[in-house]
């Protein structure tokens, strides 16, 4: 299987999941656009994998335990 065929299969699998969870009629144009957008997210993820990360590279989000009195009423 080539890389492109692999990507096509991932797009098809994600599309199937979407059409199961969001069962709406789509025109052929909408379907093509959705395929393209899913393909974009796959391409974006592939580009991100080109950046080397180590086990301790944390996401850029800060988890901070909360005390209720710190929230406004």
């Amino acid at each position, binding site marked *: 299987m080539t890389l492109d065929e692999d990507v096509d299969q991932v797009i098809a699998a994600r599309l199937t999941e*979407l059409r199961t969870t*969001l069962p709406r009629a789509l025109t052929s144009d909408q379907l093509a656009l959705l395929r393209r*957008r899913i393909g974009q*997210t796959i*391409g*974006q993820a592939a*580009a991100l994998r080109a950046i080397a*990360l180590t086990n301790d590279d*944390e996401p850029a989000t800060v988890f901070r335990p909360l005390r209720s009195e710190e929230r406004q009423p």
Partner: protein
Amino acid sequence: VSSLAYRTVPELGRMIRCGEVSPVQLAEEALDRLETVGRSLNAVVTLAPDLALEQARQAEEELAHGVDRGPLHGIPYGAKDLFATVGIPTSWGMAPHQRRVIDEDAAVIERLREAGAVLVAKLAMVEGAGGFGYEQPNATFTGPGRSAWKSEAWAGGSSSGSGSAVGAGCVPFALGTETWGSILIPSAFNGLTGFRPTHGMVSRRGAMALSWTLDKIGPMCRTAQDCGIVLAAIAGFDSADPSTRREWFEPPRPAHTRLRIAVLRGAAERAQPEVGAAFGASLDILRQMGDLEEVDLPGFPWEDAAGLIISVEGAAAFEDFLRSGEGERLTAPEDRMGLWEGLVVPAVDYLRALRVRRKGMQAMDDLLSRFDVIVAPAVGFVAPLIEDRFDTWFDADWGPSLGAAGNLCGLPSIGVPNGVGERGLPIALEFMGRAFGDGQVVAAAMRYQELTQWHERHPAR
């Protein structure tokens, strides 16, 4: 042209305090211009005459009794229609929410009220702040936003109405938001000075969320000085927005010390010729302000990371809406299944984007710590025509830009007019700085505007 239109905030403040004009007159003038000029540009969603006149009368009374809330007291403004406002519909530009009232005030609306500013209108925007993937100007129920300079050209998005209403002199300033380009682009297309603060400077409470980690709220004004004044009123800690910091922002003075200015290498080479020429002329001005050094951005997939994060956070923020089927009622056909792709991105891909983002932020700060600001053309081209599809424009390669990296890293940025492009439309120069270096960025832009007059130009409306 009215003698009150196109005035800056300090000019109007002086006129109010000298008795040359009253807050009520200013509010009435703004309401009139929004009704006529603003509506012709599709800039308005809802006028708020009752609230505006009540707030204006209160400002008038307070000032008459010596209660002065500062430079915005009695000054009218408009807010992008994604800020919640008591008693006024908040549509987020989306037809399904056209009549919805969220009965609370967003943090920025509260803060501007405390500063004595007068809310006159909720302004038009691209549906869902553009997160649904619109590919044309006609992507909101109020019709395509039209540029203040030429109504056949697009006002830019997603803060379209904020851009054209300020650009056409309907209000002296407006609030916009930017996830990726939504303040700087409409500011450039309408000849404004627009400021995107550091993520965390301004509370997002009560604002529509598209991407919790990328959304920023900022002022769209006539000058950099006005941006500093408005930012000082809206910035600050809010326990309801965990990204905000316990720091205040003071409006800066123009930067008169010699600056260290980074110039994004190759940023104008593939831009429209007029944009390139204006950038070259701007560099001559900047040489009077400081020492210039050409730099490249660190090599990261900025666009890919920002795009993936917006897709996933947007899909999460709008998940109930997507599952409800209400998306079918959005205006642009391509928006009706917008963000669906974000529902099926693996969590590890999203987290990888956030992990790469952290490394990118470190690399970016290593670069910017050597400079006061970095500059580049704000946009490589002038406003497209209303009938244009975006693939002609936004998918074209205009060369390196600061937009994706700056937004991904949450950095402050200001766009200032710096010339005239194709069809007589305005173009802009961008100054960007380190995180929480908002004051330096505004100060540099103020100095640039002391040395230039581009921000004083306005359409003959």
